[in-house]
C-alpha cells in the first residue's frame, strides 16, 4: 500500500491509531524522540562549534579525505556516533537491525555512498536535516534528489526480485 492511498484512509479515520493499524511496523514515538535528539546534536554543533553536523563531510575531514586539512574536532564528532549507539544498546535490550545478507550489496552501496556524498557535498544529516531546516536551496534540491533516487532504486530492486 502506497503513502497516497493510505493518506486518504488516515484522514477518513481521523486519529493516530489509524496509522498503527495501517503500518503496524511504524515506530512514530521512538522516531520522533530519536529525531529530536538528532536535531539537538545538530544544534550543539551549529551553535557551539559553528559548523554543520554533516556526517559524510566530517568523516572525510576526520580521515584527511577532504580538500581541507584533517581536523581533530571532526574525528571527535565521528567517534561520538558509535559511542552514543553503544550507550543506548547498553541501556536497552539491544538495537534491532536487519542488514542485507549479501556482502556484494554492502560493498557496492558503500562505494556509491562514499563517492556520491562527497560529490554532492552531503548526506542525510548535512543536507537532509541541517540544510533543509536552514531552507538552503542546495540542500532541498539534494534531499529531493537522493530521496527520489533511493525510492526508484528500491522499486527497481523489488521489481527484479532482489528485495531483502
Amino acid at each position: 500500500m502506497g503513502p497516497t492511498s493510505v493518506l486518504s484512509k488516515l484522514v477518513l479515520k481521523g486519529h493516530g491509531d489509524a496509522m498503527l493499524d495501517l503500518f503496524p511496523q511504524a515506530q512514530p514515538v521512538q522516531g520522533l524522540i530519536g529525531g529530536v535528539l538528532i536535531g539537538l546534536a545538530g544544534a550543539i554543533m551549529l551553535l557551539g562549534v559553528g559548523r554543520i553536523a554533516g556526517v559524510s563531510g566530517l568523516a572525510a575531514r576526520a580521515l584527511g579525505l577532504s580538500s581541507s586539512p584533517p581536523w581533530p574536532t571532526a574525528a571527535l564528532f565521528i567517534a561520538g556516533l558509535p559511542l552514543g549507539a553503544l550507550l543506548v544498546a547498553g541501556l536497552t535490550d539491544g538495537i534491532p537491525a536487519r542488514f542485507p545478507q549479501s556482502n556484494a550489496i554492502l560493498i557496492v552501496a558503500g562505494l556509491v555512498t562514499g563517492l556520491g556524498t562527497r560529490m554532492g557535498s552531503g548526506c542525510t544529516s548535512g543536507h537532509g536535516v541541517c540544510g533543509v531546516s536552514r531552507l538552503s536551496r542546495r540542500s532541498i534540491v539534494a534531499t529531493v534528489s537522493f530521496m527520489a533516487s533511493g525510492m526508484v532504486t528500491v522499486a527497481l530492486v523489488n521489481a527484479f526480485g532482489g528485495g531483502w
Partner: protein
Amino acid sequence: MRAVLALVSGLVFGAGLAISGMMDPARVRGFLDVAGAWDPTLGFVMGGALLVMALAWFVQRRMVRPVADDAFALPGTHNLDVRLVGGAALFGIGWGLAGLCPGPAIASLAVHPEPAAIFVAAMVAGMGLFRFLEERR
C-alpha cells in the same frame, strides 16, 4: 571546549539514531519502499530533527559567533549544479540498495560491527576515489 562539544554532539547524534530505529537498514529501506509495505518512521525522525534544527537556525541568525569558536564556518546555500544533483542521486542508489547512510553506518560499527565495517570500508574507499579524481582534474 570545542572538542568536548563535538564529542557530545556526536554522542547525542548516535543515541538519537539508535533510539529512532534508523540503525535498522530494513526499516530505512521500508521508508523508501513507497510502492510496497511503506514504513513512515523515517518521516517522524526527519520531522523531529527539522523542528529542533529550525529553532537552532533561528538562534544562529542572532549570534555573532558560535559559543566555542571565533566565527561560523557554513557552506553557501544557492549554487545548483550537476555535481550536487548527480552526487545526491548516486548516494540515493547506495541508500536504497543497503538501507544505510553514513551516520547509521558509522554508529553501527559499535553494535553490528561485521556488516557495518564492510559498508564503511567501501564508503571510505568511495570518498578516497572522489578525492583522487578531484586531484587529477
